[in-house]
């Protein structure tokens, strides 16, 4: 099915390049010839499958396939997320949420939704092209990232989060795979399929959100009244992972095991450190009653090498949800003090990389690789 679409698109673009009139049998059946020519003269339309050329397949998920593509409208590289429509349930709720939320969010650190194409069996979202994502980037640079790059990525992550939280939107699925990175080092939040707009009085939400490793302890305990603190926990996990090179609470596939991992680091909370703890649905801390908190840097030794990193991580990874720092406050944390102050004046739609002196630093292993003229883990051709 997707192959057919792909072939059709390639065919159409070829026709156009050779200056032949379009004769795609389905898409323009109802348009008369005059209108077809008018359209062609005015430019290629948005919303049409023929306006994009599929290049290679990037990845395949449970309900969508992602292709790299080129827009024939402006010649830019794009990402085409082809969503299969279910015969029974129609447009997946994730697609509806993602589209209607992204329509509202315009920010340099939020992925840009260019276009939506509906065909009979599929739905294609056209996004701006980003070279890689944080998961791949970390995979290509094992052992922790350059501290300047951690600062740069983290600042952008928090900037995007501060923006969506200000709009009262929760992402609810932050993980390295959902943070896209451009070759310049721009970071953008993507995949808003689980995101939601919160309202007053606070609705209760699903506790089946966020990949287990990045899920905060309150939600693991069944809390359904979470707020922006949910995303902050996930961002805190990602922060430590970037510095340390390893996910901080990884390797589990079970809620209790996940909580154990967290208590092993943060200590077991009590009603004193976390008011309301015992009222949470899955509260049962008898088994782990003796754990005491440790310093984060005991678990993650690299945290101590970066000034103020441990303190920021500690403030983001606070078990008591209301005790977690907000994205807005985290941006003002001392950890970011080495960055130029102009960063705080950059308008929402503009990338922080436009500030002079702010740029992605080569990672240590890349330098090492170029020194040896080898190709360690992809080396310089690390992007897709």
């Amino acid at each position: 099915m997707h192959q057919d679409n792909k072939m059709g698109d390639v065919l159409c673009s070829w026709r156009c390049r050779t200056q032949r009139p379009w004769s795609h049998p389905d898409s323009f059946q109802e348009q008369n010839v005059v209108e077809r020519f008018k359209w062609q003269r005015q430019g290629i339309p948005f919303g049409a499958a023929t306006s994009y050329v599929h290049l290679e397949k990037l990845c395949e998920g449970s309900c969508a396939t992602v292709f790299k593509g080129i827009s024939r409208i402006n010649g830019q590289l794009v990402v085409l997320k082809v969503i299969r429509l279910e015969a029974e349930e129609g447009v997946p709720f994730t697609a509806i949420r993602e589209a209607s939320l992204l329509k509202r969010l315009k920010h340099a650190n939020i992925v840009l939704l260019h276009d939506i194409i509906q065909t009979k069996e599929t739905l294609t979202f056209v996004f701006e092209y980003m070279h890689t994502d944080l998961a791949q980037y970390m995979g290509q640079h094992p052992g922790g990232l350059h501290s300047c790059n951690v600062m740069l990525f983290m600042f952008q992550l928090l900037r995007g989060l501060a923006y969506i939280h200000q709009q009262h939107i929760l992402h609810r699925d932050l993980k390295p795979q959902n943070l896209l990175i451009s070759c310049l080092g721009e970071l953008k939040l993507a995949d808003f399929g689980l995101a939601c707009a919160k309202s007053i009085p606070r609705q209760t939400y699903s506790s089946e959100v966020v990949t287990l490793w990045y899920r905060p302890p309150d939600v693991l305990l069944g809390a359904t009244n979470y707020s922006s603190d949910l995303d902050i926990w996930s961002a805190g996990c990602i922060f430590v992972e970037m510095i340390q090179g390893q996910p901080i609470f990884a390797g589990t596939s079970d809620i209790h095991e996940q909580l154990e991992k967290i208590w092993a680091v943060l200590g077991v909370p009590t009603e004193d450190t976390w008011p309301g703890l015992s009222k949470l649905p899955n509260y049962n801390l008898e088994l782990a009653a003796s754990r005491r908190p440790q310093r984060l840097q005991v678990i993650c030794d690299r945290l101590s090498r970066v000034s103020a990193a441990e303190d920021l991580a500690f403030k983001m990874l606070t078990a008591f949800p209301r005790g977690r720092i907000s994205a807005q406050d985290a941006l003002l944390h001392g950890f970011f003090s080495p960055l130029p102050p102009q960063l705080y004046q950059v308008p929402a739609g503009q990338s922080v990389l436009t500030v002079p002196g702010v740029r992605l630093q080569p990672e240590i292993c890349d330098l090492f690789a170029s020194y040896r003229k080898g190709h360690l883990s992809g080396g310089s051709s690390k992007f897709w």
Partner: protein
Amino acid sequence: MKCPGPPESSRLACFLENALAREARIWKVPVFQNLTLKGTDISLSCYKKVVLWIAEISSRFQFYPETFALATSILNRLLASVKAQLKYLQCIAISCLVLAAKTNEEDEVIPSVKMLAVQSGCKRSPAEILRMERIILDKLHWDLYTATPMDFLDIFHAMVMSNCPHLLHGLPQMNPSRHVAFLTKQLQHCMACHQLLQFKGSTLALVIITLELERLTPDWFPVITDLLKKAQINSTDFIHCKELVDQELMRLQPSNAVYIFCPTRHAIQGCPKARLPYHGPLGLRNSLQERVRVAVNQPVLAPFTSTAAPVPDETVETDDYYDGFRHLYREEGGGRVSAGGLCPQPRAGGGSSPCPPLQPPDRDWGRVAAAGAATAEPVGPGEQSGRHNRAKVLSEDNDV
């Protein structure tokens, strides 16, 4: 609901500002002319009935009130941008609810389209509903998030509660969450009223809060002036809207009383008592299975055909609920409600209810809805292709 303290006020102001911006961006409502929706065969009463029907289905599935409001907002925006035929109105309405549920409800709560089609009694196949879903998404450019009147009611209510936490002190059994649930029902009725359609959700919500405050406290004026200013609501609009809402609520009070209790009652019947959470109707959401059971047990159109006030259950929650309202009205003896001689006392006297025989204006809705569905049946667009169908269902309104 947690009652927000003073430090919350800036957060609430931020919520309001945000909601106003969203409303300003895509607020759009259809225009009525000569008793029908401009350029269509949809009459005022059909419009009203379809909105109340969405409300009914929405509470049947125990969706949040915000989901009903979002569905209505989607419906209004669609009717404002296309010329829809009456025979498709019900299909459009149920599709709007499907979209609102997919947008606003959690995954585990969203019923299957098939179930929604069957339980709503809309006589539409899931395929038709799904085709309509895509048409609506296309027409509205996938831009569904907006600030509904319900969002504004929640915000204004939270603001009032945060400024005057003592407001409900004279009303034992009434807490902010029950209070807002009560106002929500009033708002639902106003949203079905075509005369009120011309007013923005922010205006309508503030009017409902104002009328309520007028009854609760002599000091309502400064509170409302402050909110009017914060919400930048046009005072002429506000006064006009207030008069209309006042009339509407006076007329609707009896049927309103019936309407209020039905969903809650069913919810309580459907849920094991032990699982009832502490905080009122917002907590009455349980697993989908329970919802399904609720839906199966109750024929959908029953509340519309019933003229008798419901006999309350023995459940504590229900009693609290009734008592809350009774106190509310008793305290306000000669107020707006009793002015028409229709003081709702749905519970008074337990079994032998001295309630006046209720003649809700929307009583005949069930019959009309069924008739509407029947007239739409012969068209049967089941085999048509989506695009073809779209061309037939909706003709573009170029003026809008």
